[in-house]
Every structure is written in C-alpha cells, then in structure tokens.
C-alpha cells in the first residue's frame, strides 16, 4: 500500500500541482481545501501517513489546526510538514510542534527529499 499524503491548502493551484507531482512520485495523495475538515473526514482506518499543511488558509488558521491535530487522539502520531510562504514559517513550525517545514516557493528536489524521510515504506 503506497504512503498516503494529505495536502491541506486553500489554493487549488497548489493542491493541483502537489497532487500531480506527488502522485507521479508514487504516493497516494488526498487533497483538502479546508484543514478544519481533516478530523471529520478521516478515521482510524484511513488515517494519512503524512500531512502537508499550509498555515495560512482562509477559513481556519493552519496554526490552530496543527495544534489541534497534535493533541488529537488519532492524529498526534501523524507527522505534519508546514508548507507556507510565511516569512516566519520556521519559527512557527517550532512553536506549534510541526515536524518540518517548507518555505514557498521551494524546489521540487527539496520537497522530494523531505517527503522521502517520512515514507513508511
């Protein structure tokens, strides 16, 4: 079973290109425009292996989602990578206990190597 990656971003273009790239890399990719829906859409059976989370989304704040997920019974073991254009992404990532971060815009090689570290298989 391929590694399942959940991409949560409010920008459809980002979702589209990430889905295309990660699918091509051989991952199973789920896209979600609203991060708040993560907990409702997933259960123990279909839990993602990795979450790429934008911290600045319309609707709900990526920060809050991240903090909530880290306390969540099911999701607290799922690694979260912050993917953001925010200047202080690194700082925020440390603050909210994210497992890594990517600063937009990034090179696909950086993304590839980072994702590979969390590949279960």
């Amino acid at each position, binding site marked *: 079973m391929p590694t399942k990656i959940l991409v949560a971003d409010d920008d459809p*273009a980002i979702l589209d*290109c990430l889905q*295309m*790239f990660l699918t091509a890399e051989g991952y199973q990719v789920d896209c979600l425009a609203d991060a708040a829906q993560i907990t409702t859409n997933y259960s123990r059976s279909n839990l993602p292996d990795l979450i790429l989370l934008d911290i600045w989304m319309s609707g709900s704040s990526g920060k809050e989602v991240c903090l909530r997920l880290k306390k969540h019974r099911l999701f607290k073991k799922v690694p979260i990578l912050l993917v953001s254009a925010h200047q202080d992404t690194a700082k925020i990532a440390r603050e909210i206990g994210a*497992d890594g971060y990517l600063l937009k*815009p*990034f090179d*696909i090689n950086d993304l590839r190597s980072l994702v590979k570290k969390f590949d279960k298989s």
Partner: protein
Amino acid sequence: MNIIEQLKQTSVKGTELPKIKPAVSLVILVIGVILTLAFTYSSIRFAKTRELANFSESVKQTRLMVENKFQHYVFLLRSAAGLFIASDQVLPNEFDSFIDGLELEKNYPGIAEIGYFTVKDNEDDLEIEVVFGRAVRQACLTARPTTPNSSKIVTSSNLPALSELDQALKKANRTGQPALSTPINLPILNESDNQTSPQCQNLFFLLLPDYQSPASDSVNNFDFSNNNSEPFVTDQVIETQEQNNQQKNVEGFIFLSFQADYFFSTEILQNPSLPVDFVVYQNIDEQPLINDVLYSSVPKLTAQSLAKTNAYTQQSILQIVDQTWQVFWAPNDNFTKSFERNLYPLYLFAGLSMSFLVFLLSRLHSKTLTQAELATHDLYASQEALKRSRLLYQAVVENASDLVTIIDLVGNVLYASPSHEEVLGYNPEDLANINAFQLLHPDDFESVRIKVTDLAGGGSGRAEFRFKRKDGSYILLEGIGTGIVDDRGKVGAVFIISRDITERKEIEKRKDEFMTTASHELKTPVTSLKIYTQYLQEYFQKCHDPVALELLNKMNQQLGRLTNLIRDLLDVSRLEAGKLQLRTSIFDLTKIVKETIAIVQLTTEKHTIYLTSSRVAMVQADPDRISQVLVNLLTNAVKYSPQSDRIEVSVNADNEQVKVCIRDYGLGIPKSKRKQVFDRFFRLNRPKSETYAGFGLGLYICAQIIDRHEGKIWVQNTVGTGSTFCFSLPIVAKKRKSRKKQNRSTKIRQKDKKPNKLLK
C-alpha cells in the same frame, strides 16, 4: 480676544525712540553767550556814560574849588585894602596884627607873600618900595636887595622881571580892580651871601591899587593917565569908573603873591582823593606846549604822557581875575579805581560760565533723559517680548492637538493642555486632582513610572502606554517626556507631549498584514509555477529533449528572480518598519563567502569567481542575511559585467574587522553616484538597451542589513574598468565567541541556518 489676533498686535520691535536733538543745547549755549555779550556791552556803555558824567562833575567841582580859592584871595586883598582905606596912616604893628589875625597859613594856603608897596616911575626905571611885607613862604619880593635909603626898595635894575609886573600895575591902576600879573620867574637872593638860589618860578602877583588924596606928592610920579599903550575897555561903565579913578592918585598897591605850584598843590594835598589829574597852561593855544605848563598835578609830566592821557581828557578854561588859563583834565588812578570797570571781565566770565553751565546741564539732562527713555524702552520692549512669547506659547500649547502635560515625579498633574478634554474626556479641573500614574493601564504602570523617575537625572525619554479615558476605555498614547530643571538644577517636574497613536498603530498593523498577505499571495502562484516547471524539466530530461529543457531552465531562472524580487519587497517593508529580525550567531564569514560563491557560480557559465581569503574571520551576524548581501553583490557583479568573464572576491581580516570586497570588470559606477547607489529605488541611468531589470532595492537592502550589523558598506575606487563593492563587519573577540556558544538558542539557530531542513 483671539490669541492669534493678540499675537499680530504685539510687535517684536517695541516703540520707536524719540530722537534727541543736541542742537537745542547748542542753541541754549549760543543764546547764553549772545545775552552775556549784550549785557556786558550795554553795561560797559552805561558805565562809560556814567563815568563820563562823574568825570565832568569831578572836573567841575575841582574847578570851582580853584576859583573859590581865588575869590578868597581877592576878598583877602580887598579886606587888606579896606584896612588902608580906613586909616590914612597904617602903622607897621597894625598891619602885623591884621596879618596875624588872618592866620594866613591856615586860612589861605598857597600865599607866598602879602604886603603893601609904593611905586615910583623914574623914566626908565621902575622903583618899588615895599612898605609892609609879610612873607609866608619864599618871599621873593621882600627878599630883594635893598638900597641904603630904604630897606625894602626893589628897582628894575635889581629885579629884571619887574617890567612884567608893570603891566599888571598899570591895569590895576586903570581899572581900580584887582589885577593878576603874568607869571614871573624871580631868582631868590639871600641877604647873607648875595648868591642866587633856586628861582621863584611862576610867581603871580595879585594887585589892588590904594588911592590917596590928590594932595599927595607921590601921585605925580606915577600918572597912568598919560599912558595910552593899553587899549581901554570899551565898556562905558568901566570908562566912567576909570574917569573917576583918574581923579584919584595912586598911593600904592596892596599885593599878594603866590606860586602856581603851591597854589594848586595845596589843593591836591587837601584833597588827596581827587579823581582827576589836571594840567594848567598859561596861554590858550590849541596845541599847548610843555613849556607853557604852569602847573601839573602829575609829578613828572612829559609831552608824550600828556598826549597819551586817556579818553576822558577834557579841556576847560579857568578864568582867574583878569587872566585866562587853560586846563586839561584827565581821570587819575583814583577815578579808575572808583568805577566798576574792573568788573567787566568778571561779568563776561560769569556770563559765559553760566551759559556754558546751562549748556552742560542741558546736555546732561538730555543724556539722562535719553538713558531713562532707553531704559523705559527696553523695559517696554522686553515686556512686549515677554507677552508675545507667552502668547506664542499659549497659542502653541492650547491649540495643540497633542496632549501637553506637566507632572511632578510622582505623577501629580501640574498642568494639562485643553486638548486633554477632547482626547481623554477630562477637563482641566478633573486633572488638577488626579495622579496620572493611577490612570495608566496596570500593565504599563511600572514601566512608565520607572521611565518618569529616570528623568529626575535630566534628559528626555519616550514611552508608549495605555491610558484610561474618562469613559473607562483605554487609549494608546505615545509620550515624549523631558525633565524640567529648576533653579537649583534639580528636576522637579516632567514636561510630556503625548499623542493618540491608536490609529497609527492600526494602520501599521494593517500595512504589515497587507505585506504579509501580498507576499503570500504572490508567492503562491510562483510556488505552483515552480513545481510545474521543475516537474517539466525532469520530464524533458527523461525524454532527452534538450530544446525544451533549455527553455525550462531559463523559465526556472526567471522564477528564481521573481522569488527574489518578492522577497526584496517584503524585506524593505520590514526594514522600514524596523521589524527585520536578525537571528545572529557566530560563524566564519569566509566559509559563508565560499558557499555563496559556489551557489552564484552555478547561475553563470561565462564568469569565473575567484576568492582570495587570508584567515578565519569569526563574526556575530545573521548568516542568512549576510548570505543575502553576498548573493546580491555577486549577482550584481555578474549582471553588470556582461562583457568580462572574471569576478574577484577578497576577504581580509584584522583584529578588529573583516573586509569583503567584490570586484568586477564591468561598466563601473561614476564617482558622483557612488554614495547614491545605496539609496532606495536608486537606478543608474543608462542607455535603454542596457537597462537591467530590478526595483533598485538590492543595494538598499544590503546597506540596511550591513548597517544593522554595525558594519560599513561602500564603493571603493577602482583602477581600470568595473567597480568594487566592499563591506566590513566587526570581528568577534574569542571570549565573546565562547560565551555566545553556550547560548542554547544560538545552537538551535545554527541548526536552522539552512532552510528547508528538518527540525529534528
């Protein structure tokens, strides 16, 4: 009244000074001098008139005195004649007692001799026999040599001047009136030795005929009637008298002699204070000669001194019996002394002094007045200035929209501008009883209190704080406080200007939000573009399509530039807001330079970047930002030297600082523009064909970053083409380095040095 109107009315200049005229004082002086001169002149004129009158009076009196004396003499002569008329035969002792009774010396001073003589005319010899004679002074006549027959006979032979007497004898005989002889000079003969002694000069004889009965013998000898040599007086009365007289016979003459000198000098002796000098002349010629002088009251009279007698000289005629004398009068020392003529210079001096004194006083007064006016003027001007400055301050303070507050060091409000009511809702009365510290937000209380207390040492300080309004809400204020120093140099109060910065803060916040949003929004499409592009690159690499790959490489490069531009914009806005945070750590600058060169080298194929470095150069800085500066400078070097293929980088460190220089061989920068290149949005104006893309922010950001690191950045003079950009950073001492390495946060940041890495 409106403060502004009052301000317009007060003048900085004050009032105009009245002009002082020194000419007035001068006019006073001139008038004083003129008045003095006029007064002195008129005084002199008046006094001269008075003197002249006094002089004339003195002359008149003296003349009267002399004439009176003669009258006395005539009276004496007549009384003596009476003696002889009363008695046919006068005995010698009778005459003597008569003369004694007269007390001649006392009552008739000046008489030389008095007596009675008979005359015999013997053809060519005149013979006088002195019957009686009393000599009071020098008795010239009775002292004549005597004949054997008579002891008192004087003849023409022994008295040569007797003929001169003859004229008077004849006249007296003819008129029967007293006659005065002309002056006779007689030598005095001493009976003892018959020697001639000093003459009896200017001796006058006053004669009065004594008639006897026609029976007398001696009359025949002296008959005047036959003598026609003298012209008769035409007066008919006198003629009648003469006819009567002719019937009588002259028996003898009563005579009286005096010397002019004695006659006049007794007068002078009797009146030593006579104010006049006079000179008596025998003749009455217009130009009297010194030889004609009968008498002069001036002891040593010369012709010159006579001519030089002063202006008051007066001339008069003195009628003595039947003789006429001429007298010249002149004021003497007594006269001069008796007049105020000596006072004229005093008058003049006093008058001039007074005038000058008045002049001085008026000048002094004027000067004092001027000083007083100046003082008043100054006072007025300073009051005006004070008023003006007060109004100005009032206008500034009371119309200021900012809050102007004066508090003491413990927060009591000493003054609050009217703007408080509008901004905070408190009116001045409310604030008078308020402690400003109590209205601070509890979170800001301590920091503000400490800052105010710090001002006790002088100086000024700035603080942002929340302040409770009257309605209970808080307002964000920014205050700048300055210690007010009192007379003793102690800060007793703090002057605070504060303003509401709520709105400003809000705008700043919105701007920040906008910048963050904008950069995010801009970066998002770039991110997707980059992913697509790089994905395509990989795709075409697999497909071995070099053309497409080449195009995609260029696309990727341009995307990188776009990313940098977006980052620059964000950086500038952060720099402006002072929000660029440095994550400093201690590292080797040479190492960073090497790494950056390696990255930039990848972007250019034409250029080769050479590095010369001396040693390890440890600096405390934000490695990302320093790297940004290096990338910027290197990219510029590549960009602006398209014709060359060489870029040189040097790192030189000493004990205090490390200097990094990047030299290219490109277009170079004109010397005049070298400082401006670090300005925001500065771009060199070049021909259109050579225009390069960019906002003109790169060097500005570099300069700002280096400035934040307390370093320097500049364009160095370059020999030949191209330009050299240098920057320097302070070297970290080893102690500091080790201490900083213990800092935990630093360690973490060192790990974060490279982005896009895992945290763990």
